[in-house]
């Protein structure tokens, strides 16, 4: 096989493209710009850490099935860790989102990073909602029977039936987490590719 032929391979092209955009020193950096110095930056990594806890506790709940936690004290504790990691996840994510808004973090070709972040937030809202209606308790009875009206009124209820436990559970533990994790991965990789947005040029003048 000639060198030219190897160069034309899809695999070769993809590897070169990935390596060009995301060399190892960008993927796993050991330095960062000096302006990345504020508590607000903590909330991005906190969101990812909370997502990790959400997934871990969710996996344990999934192993024993959707109703285990009603009859087991260990199951109830795992459910509690699932709940509180979700609460921390959303708190951190919303602070992160508004922090990035006030930094105008889309500047410098980072608009796709912003877009994937917002879509991740929306997918996470859907993931949490389907979790609330899959609890198989009074909360899920009430929330699902109330939420059906908003969803049915848009026509979406014709295919997304919040009263169908099996359907909601599938969305909660397969489809939406897959979307949320995939989007988070793309979002983080975009941050690594583009770097953290620099400060505005202010009265200080051009950034140094």
């Amino acid at each position: 096989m000639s060198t030219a032929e190897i160069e034309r391979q899809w695999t070769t092209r993809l590897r070169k493209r990935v390596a060009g955009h995301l060399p190892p020193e960008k993927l796993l950096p050991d330095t960062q710009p000096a302006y990345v110095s504020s508590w607000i930056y903590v909330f991005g990594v906190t969101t990812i850490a909370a997502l990790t806890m959400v997934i871990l506790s969710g996996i344990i709940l999934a192993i024993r099935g959707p109703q285990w936690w009603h009859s087991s004290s260990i199951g109830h504790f795992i459910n509690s860790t699932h709940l509180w990691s979700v609460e921390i996840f959303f708190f951190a994510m919303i602070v992160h989102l508004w922090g990035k808004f006030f930094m105008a973090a889309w500047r410098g070709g980072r608009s796709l990073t912003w877009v994937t972040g917002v879509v991740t937030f929306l997918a996470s809202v859907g993931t949490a909602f389907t979790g609330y209606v899959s609890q198989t308790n009074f909360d899920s009875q009430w929330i699902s029977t109330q939420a059906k009206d908003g969803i049915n009124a848009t026509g979406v209820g014709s295919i997304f039936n919040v009263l169908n436990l099996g359907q909601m559970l599938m969305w909660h533990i397969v489809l939406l987490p897959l979307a949320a994790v995939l989007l988070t991965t793309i979002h983080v990789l975009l941050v690594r590719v583009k770097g953290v947005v620099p400060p505005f040029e202010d009265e200080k003048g051009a950034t140094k």
Partner: protein
Amino acid sequence: MSTKPFRPDVDAPKYEGKYTPYDIIREGTIAIVVVGLLVILLATLFGSPDERAITIKTWSNADPIDFATTALGELNGTTITAQYGAPYNTAAPGQNLGPLKLAQFAGVTIPVNTVRDFVIAPLTSQPYNKNLSAALSQWKGASAAQQSSWVSNYTKGASKMTWSNGTITVPATNTGPVPTMINSLTAMARSGALDQALVTGGGFYTTNYTKPLLFVADGTYLANLAQKQHLLGSQWGMMNETGSYPGQAWLWLYTFWYQVSPFSSSSNADVQVSALMGLLSLLLLLVPFIPGLRSIPRKVKIYRLIWREYYHS
């Protein structure tokens, strides 16, 4: 050769300043450990709510009059489900978003006939009972007009419905088999058989609770319990959960619109609020591309707090 002018809300200045050491793996590990410990602490201190689900059995035993009134509503077509429209039936056109009838357009994809699914089919599934069998034969053999007349006569006396010695009594005449049907359904509900009949109506295996949930939500028992738990729509319902837990606090804006005019009094509130939230979500998504909106951060200057060390250096 011309160069594009620098747009401060779109372009970022090139940074050529100092870099500091950054250990991304260490940072991620510390974050996971700290968040993990915080989660364990919160879970240990506060736990999580788990109010037992109600059943039709608990409902009909706690409040047989409410159950029987709801069952009659399913029969005379006055419950929320009976009058819902798409995706359950064609009883109503559904809500409008201007000229758009989105639910009606999507159609009936989860068919629910309250007379058939909530009353006749469950009663038919019962073991043989002479009185019930005769009542069902009488019902099924009658014309729609006759059925309607019986139900109408029974409904006229329903406000004086009483419950005594395990029997629902309504002062009404010419009601045909309706009293037997309502009493049989109430007895069936109180035994727990109606829960099973509604769940397994579609076969042995099921994970779909649409019918029992719709039936339960048609009564006032569920809503009364929800009110005590501050879960009604007027109490910022859907974002809350039982007990003193944060619930889905991130839905605050969605729930907020239901509390204010014109949505609080609109018959199309559900579709209007959904459309508004869809629009606001789209605006948030497209902030980088919307002139004016994308200038807000630069103009409010909160970034000076975020990067204060940088600007003071």
